[in-house]
Every structure is written in C-alpha cells, then in structure tokens.
C-alpha cells in the first residue's frame, strides 16, 4: 500500500484522537501535561485560545473528545478531559498580562454580532483584538446567551459566566444588551461590513396532544422554563413533575425541578434508555438525584380535571427495526399507562426561529426554513451575512458554536480584506523531538494503570436544597494530578525513519500493545490482517513506511499505541523518534499562548 505521508498535518492530528474529535481542535494532551505540572494558567490559556470558554466548557461541554480518547480503548474509561479543563480554570490564579488587550488602532471595519451567546462572543473575541469594531446585540441584560439562560446554576455558577464573558467584553467590544434585533435589513443598512448571526435555536418545540390547551397553566416549555428559573422568575414547581424528552435539556429540567420543590420527578421518553440524546453522564447525574427515567412511553394526552392538570397518559411501545435498520415504535397494545402529576415540562426539542430576517435581502432559506450556509466558510447567500452556532445548522452545543465562530471570523476577516474565502489558512504545526539523552525523554512516558477518578460531588442533601449550589466540586489538585497522569500523550508521535532502520525487531519485541510489524507489503485491507495484532479498527490509520533494506514495510497500527516511547527507547539507530506535534488551528487573532517546558514563548 501507499506509504504514509506524515508531512500532511492531518495524519498526526488524527492520531491525537481527542484533539481531532474536538470541533475546536483544542490541543488536549498539551494542556493536560501543564495541569500535571501545576501550570494551570498556561493550561487555561491554551484552552482559552482554542475554545474561548474553558471554565464554562469544563463544566458543560458535550465532550466529543472523551468517547474518542485512546485510553477508553486500551483501558475502560477515557481520561476525564472535560473536568481537567475545569481544573485549569479553577486553579489558574492571576492572568495578568496574558489576555490580549483592545486593539490600539482600529482597522475601520465594523462587524455586528446578533445574539450574545457563545458563537457571537467567540467571533468578537477573534476580531476585536486585531482592530475590528465589533458590536454585539442581545435582548437580555447580560451576555452569555443560552449559557446564561438555559444552563442551571447548580451546573454552572454565574460567577464563571461573568468572568469568561467579561474577558471578551474587555477587548473593546461594544455591547448593546437589552436591545432586540428585529430586522436584519436595517442592520445591514446601518453599514456594517459584515453581520454574524449567532442567535441560537431559541424556540422550544411544543407537544400538541389532547388536553394541551385545557391544562396549559401547568405545562411549560423546557428552555423557556429554564430561563425563567435562571432569571429568578420561577422559584417553585409542583410536588409531582413529569419531564418529557430525552436530551440534555430534559436532564437540566428534571434536576432543576428536583431543587424547586419537585420531590417526585420523573423523566418520560419515547425511545429506549440507550437511544436517549442526553450524554450518559447527564443521565447518570439525574438518576443519582433520585429521578427515574421511564422509557418506551409515547404521550397520548394531558389529563385534566376542572381546568387543572392532573396527569398524563402514555402508550407503551416497543422498538421494531425494519429491513433498512430504521427504528419504528410500535404500540404493545397494553392499556395506557397513567402517571399523575402537578406539572409537566416539555423538553422535546428546540427549533430555529428567524422572524427578524427579511426574506428579500438575498438570504436563501431551505425547505426546513433554515438559511443556506456554507459549511466551510459559514457564509450565507448574502455575502455580508455569516451564521454560526445553533443558528447555522440547528441545535448542537457550545463547542461547535465556538468552532463555527473561529471559522466565521476567518471568513469575515478575508471578506473584509478582499481575500478568497475558500482558501483556508493552514494550521500552525510545531514538531519537537522529545529525546534529551540516550535514555531520557522530555515527557512523562511512564504509563499509569489507574482507572478514571470520580469527580467529588456535594452531598445530595445539601445540593437539592439550593438551586444555585454547584453540585460538582471539581477535582482537587491531587486528584487532578492523578487523573492527568492517565493521559497517554498521544500528541507525542512515533516518527519512523526507514533509512536508519536495520530491522533488528527491537521495537516489535518491546511494544506492549503489539502495534508494530515488519512484513511483506500488500493492499491495506489484507495487510491489516497480517499485523502482530490484526488492525480491525478501520477508523484508525496504519502508519506504513517502505524504503527498508529487505524490501519489507514497517506497518504500525495507531489504534492502541500507548505513546510510551519504548520503541524509540529500544531502537539502536534512532530510526524511531518520539516527536511532539503541536497543532494549532489557524485563527484571526495572533494570540500567543504557545508554551514549552521552559516557559511561555514570546
């Protein structure tokens, strides 16, 4: 098969599973090493550069990195990447001199951001320090968007939001809070060079079934109810509460209800427990708080007596799969299940809503009434208008919003300066050999056998009494160190130089996970079956190198590699080297956070 092209930055980027899976491509192993080194501020800044909201994401991220983590394959559980990010935020201390400052000179370009959620704020963060005049509009009194309105305070304290929104507001961004944008046309007419729409997916989907109108007083839309709770407009709920829906919003609803007087809170979902959209850990947290999750129940009607909600009835279903593997929920034919309740929270989905965008200003909408947005450039069919976050492609999560924002900022920057939007800037790749002496390596390559450490929680009795009491306590420094040591340093790559290899087999013999094979060449599918350990995980590349004296090839399965460096340690000729690949995605702002073992580089 074709030898691997390791000069393509994507090759080694993919090996860093966590970073590759992260929409914002945060250099995870690098900041985890810094945490282990107690250099929390450095770790925080690496995060801040890449994902803008480390303290917020360290508590609320959907963590696409963790299912991808290699540790979860060689052992059982991934590294607690998300909660280590929180550690960096919790212990960072003084950041004086680290944050960028407002631009000393403006570049004369004006950008409007609609909504003050994560997408808009991240665009502002990228553009303001290089001289753009950025104006952020939001109908609420303070910035943060859904971060502030929808995420319960027991998961994310207000102070963390204030701090991280504050870093962006301090960059000379003009904020127009308490002001609703009701016409995109007039915004464009105001002469902004570009408009970024980061208005989220603000409308909760309703459930129209019999009894909905009659019992309306005790039926609440999940995200609206959460924001009422957030802003203190709602302070209690009935004793018996049903939460409909299986996503993370439903989990926030049920746990909030539990803290506002609901002592009999149930989540009811149509699907099976496994297919629920909520993250596994959010389901776990809800169950830990004494909230049962009842599955395979499809709502039939809201039951009411004398104009007051008294309960709901459900049809019991089972999942059947047709020939194409599509799931159908089929009634079991049993009698309807009745669940009595005082309140219902409907969290069955969110929708986009653009009543304020005129349909005659050159923005095309598709048949789902979503704007047509270029996935690469985030540009709409009106060249001055860009979308990001939930407003672009429907409800996702904060980290996707940030990822969109960086790309949209690059596009806006190019657009304002007449560049080609499709010509995307290359990542910044730094390669550093880790060899220090004959047997010394400049990274900690001793593989720890510890299983994942649990994050300490507040005692449930206290947690359920106060909706603002943060329930997760976070790792302390000792636990954080131990958890950080579980990281395999996947960014320290095994780099092979065939010209130096004498084919002595030392690397093959020492590899603890049988990654390396020297074999006759063959087509990839066939070669994969002939390796020391067959490479059956097709999502992981094999690193193939020809140019050996015997005419064989070196084939290394990246799947299980522990990055322990023993191959390089036992190589007599230095044909294997351990090299750190730091891959930083391009951004508009030249924010300097590059760190080395020696310290922060200027």
């Amino acid at each position, binding site marked *: 098969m074709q030898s691997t092209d390791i000069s393509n930055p994507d090759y080694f980027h993919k090996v860093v599973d966590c970073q590759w899976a992260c929409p914002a491509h945060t250099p995870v192993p690098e900041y985890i090493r810094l945490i282990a080194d107690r250099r929390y501020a450095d770790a925080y800044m690496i995060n801040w550069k890449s994902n803008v909201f480390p303290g917020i994401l360290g508590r609320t991220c959907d963590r696409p990195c963790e299912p991808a983590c290699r540790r979860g394959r060689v052992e059982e559980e991934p590294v607690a990447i998300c909660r280590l990010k929180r550690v960096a935020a919790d212990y960072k201390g003084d950041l004086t001199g680290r944050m960028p400052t407002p631009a000393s000179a403006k570049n004369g370009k004006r950008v409007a951001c609609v909504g003050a959620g994560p997408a808009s704020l991240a665009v502002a963060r990228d553009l303001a320090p290089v001289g753009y005049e950025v104006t952020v509009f939001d109908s609420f009194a303070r910035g943060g968007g859904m971060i502030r309105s929808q995420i319960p305070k027991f998961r994310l304290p207000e102070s963390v939001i204030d701090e991280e929104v504050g870093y962006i507001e301090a960059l000379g961004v003009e904020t127009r809070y308490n002001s609703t944008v009701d016409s995109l046309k007039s915004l464009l007419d105001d002469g902004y060079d570009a408009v970024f729409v980061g208005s989220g997916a603000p409308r909760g989907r309703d459930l129209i079934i019999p009894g909905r109108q009659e019992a309306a007083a005790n039926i609440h839309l999940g995200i609206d109810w959460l924001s009422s709770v957030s802003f203190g407009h709602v302070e209690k709920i009935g004793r018996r509460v049903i939460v409909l829906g299986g996503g993370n919003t439903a989990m926030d609803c049920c746990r909030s209800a539990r803290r506002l007087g609901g002592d009999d809170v149930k989540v009811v979902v149509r699907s099976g427990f496994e297919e629920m959209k909520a993250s596994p850990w959010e389901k776990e947290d809800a169950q830990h708080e004494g909230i049962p999750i009842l599955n395979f129940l499809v709502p039939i009607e809201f039951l009411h007596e004398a104009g007051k909600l008294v309960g709901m009835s459900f049809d019991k279903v089972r999942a059947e799969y047709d020939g194409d593997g599509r799931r159908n929920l089929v009634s079991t034919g049993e009698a309807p299940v009745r669940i009595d309740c005082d309140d219902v929270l409907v969290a069955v989905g969110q929708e986009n809503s653009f009543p304020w965008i005129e349909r005659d200003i050159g923005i095309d909408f598709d048949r789902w009434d979503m704007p047509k947005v270029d996935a690469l450039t985030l540009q709409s069919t009106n060249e001055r208008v860009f979308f990001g976050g939930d407003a672009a492609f429907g409800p996702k999560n904060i980290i996707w919003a940030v990822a969109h924002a960086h790309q949209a900022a690059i596009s806006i920057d190019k657009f304002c300066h007449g560049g080609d939007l499709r010509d995307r800037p290359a990542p910044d790749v730094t390669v550093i050999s880790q060899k220090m002496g004959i047997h010394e390596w400049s990274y900690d390559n001793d593989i720890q056998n510890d299983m994942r450490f649990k994050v300490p929680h507040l005692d449930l009795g206290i947690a359920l009494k106060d909706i603002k009491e943060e329930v997760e306590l976070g790792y302390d420094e000792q636990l954080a160190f131990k958890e950080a040591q579980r990281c395999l340093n996947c960014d320290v790559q095994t780099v092979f130089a065939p010209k130096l290899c004498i084919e*002595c087999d030392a690397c093959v*013999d020492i590899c*603890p996970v049988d990654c390396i094979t020297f074999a006759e060449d063959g087509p990839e599918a066939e070669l994969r079956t002939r390796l020391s350990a067959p490479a059956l995980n097709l999502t992981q590349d094999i690193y193939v190198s020809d140019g050996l004296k015997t005419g064989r090839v070196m084939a290394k399965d990246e799947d299980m590699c*522990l990055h322990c460096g023993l191959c390089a340690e036992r*190589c007599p000729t230095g044909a294997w080297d351990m090299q750190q690949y730091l891959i930083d995605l391009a951004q508009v702002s030249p924010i300097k956070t590059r760190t080395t073992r020696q310290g922060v580089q200027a």
Partner: protein
Amino acid sequence: MTYMTKPKMHHPDLKTNALGFTRRDYEGPVSTLCAGCGHDSISAAIIRACYQLNLQPHRIAKLSGIGCSSKTPSYFLGASHGFNSVHGRMPSVLTGANIANKDLIYLGVSGDGDSASIGLGQFAHAIRRGVNMTYIVENNGVYGLTKGQFSATADKGAKNRRGVPNMDEPIDMISMALQLGATYVGRSFSGDKDQLVPLIEGALMHKGAAFIDCISPCVAFNNHDGSTKSFDYVREHNEAVNRMDVILGREPITAEYAPGQMEMVRQHDGTYLKLKKIATDYDPTDRVAVMNYLQEHKARGEIVTGLLYVDSDADDLHGYLDSVDAPFNSLSDADLVPGAGALAKLNASLR
C-alpha cells in the same frame, strides 16, 4: 540501559493460551542489554515459544553462565526457575539439576564466549551425555561485555570495527554438536522469528540433547561492513534448508504441500515437526549426510539454517543411567537413606 518499565497494559485483543496466560505473562522485566541487541529478539522468541506450547512457567528452569547472552534469562519467563552459574559452567549445573529433577523443562542459554571458550569442555560433555535440555547459544562472534574482541566463533577473515581481520579458525558449534551426538540440531538467526520460534518449540518438546546455534548480531561491536555476523551479512548469506512448524499432538494434521516437499517427523511426546523442504535433497535424519552438507555449504560461504538434524527416537541421560523416575525432592528419607542393611547387601554383592 533502559530505565523505563514496560506498561502492564496490553492489546485488548491479546489472546490467551490453553492455560489462560497471555504472551505477556511469559515476559520478564525490560532488558538492560544494548538497544537492538539480537539477544533480546531471541528472548522474545523464547517467550513466544513457551506461550504457544502452553508451558507452565513454574515447570521451566532457565540456566545460564556469564556474558551478555547469559544475562538474558533475567528478561524472559519471570515466573520460572532460574540459575545464573559460574562462567562456562551452565552445562554442569544444568546436568546436575536435571539429574535431581527430571520433571522440569531445562533451558540452557549461553553465548559463544561462555560455550565455545571457557565452557567448551562443559558444552561437549553435556551434549555427549544426552542431557534432556534445550541448549541455545546466542552467537555474535564477539565479546560484547569487554568491548568487542573476537570470540572463538568469529570467522577467519572477519573484520573488527577497526578493520582488523581475525586470523584464528572459528569453532563450529553445530559441527561439534553433531559429532558429539546431539539429537536435535538447528541453526537460526535472531532477525528471523518465523524460523526461530518453531525451532525453539521443537527443541523444548524434544527428548534428548537439543542444540540451537542462533546467530545474534551485536549491534554495538559486530554489525559493521566486514563482519560476518551482522544483520546485513547474515540476511545475504542465509540458506535455509527447511521451514518448520510444530504441531501439537491434538491438532489435526493437514498436508498443504506436494509429496516430497513436506515431511512430518513425530517426536517422542507425540508432537509433530512439520518440515517444509527448501533444499529438496536435504535429509535432516541422516547425521553423516548432514555433516557433509554443512561442510560443503560452509566452504561456499553459506550460512545454512533451519532444523539441521533430528533423531526422533532419541533417549536421554536418565534412560542411559536407568535413574529413578521420581524427582529427588519427592523421595522420602527412607528412599534416600536405605540404611546399613542395604549398604551391607550392596557391599556383599560386589565381593
């Protein structure tokens, strides 16, 4: 030397053998030999062979003398018995241990210095007595521990790192073993595990004196141009006479090769050696023909490898001596000290 420990983690798909052990369970601590040493590959081959043969680690005794090669038993079979003897004296210690307990599997690991110089006499007598053992010489042609002087197996004309040729005749341990009556003789190369692992497996299952000469390049002192024991030289001059598989008794035997190309040799314990012939005129059961073949090919500068000779009906030292069946440690005081009456009887029989 390497200070790192090898991670305990292994590939999740790593298979277990009939005893429930993974290959990793047959390992020892990380080697302290020079990185890339051929000896480490031989250790890996021994680990693989023991794993594949489902050997119980505590039923194996590994013995060695002095030298780089003799250090290696520290780095494999961490759960087996070990004895690191005086320089060149491994064969005597092994013979003694074997006499005392014939139930263990004996693995002697030695080098060209330990066996061809200081221990040459020891080597010769253990072989000619037919001690039931696997005797591996990790042969690199130099004294690595003392910085690369030629050893007794270095070929005449081979050059050292400074380009100075060796003027002494080499000792050919394969030829000696054949002359002295070894009943299983093989030669292999540390860089070819496909060949080496089955050879070790066959030797471990063989009853009688099994000898393997394994060329094992010294990456520090004997892997340069002009060396005849370097990776490149051995790969260029390697002439394998056959390829072998060891078939455990209970596995079905299927012939994959045309007649005349494949030969099945039944060993004493019921295992089969399946030999795929490469040199079609080569008969590994004819000792005299083998010796002639080796001399002819050596004269042409070829390194003949493979299973060179096997006598599958061989007996061993215990058979020759008609010794007691049970290991000494299981004999009672009454068995071991039969008393004055028995002595008197014995003396009377000799008068």
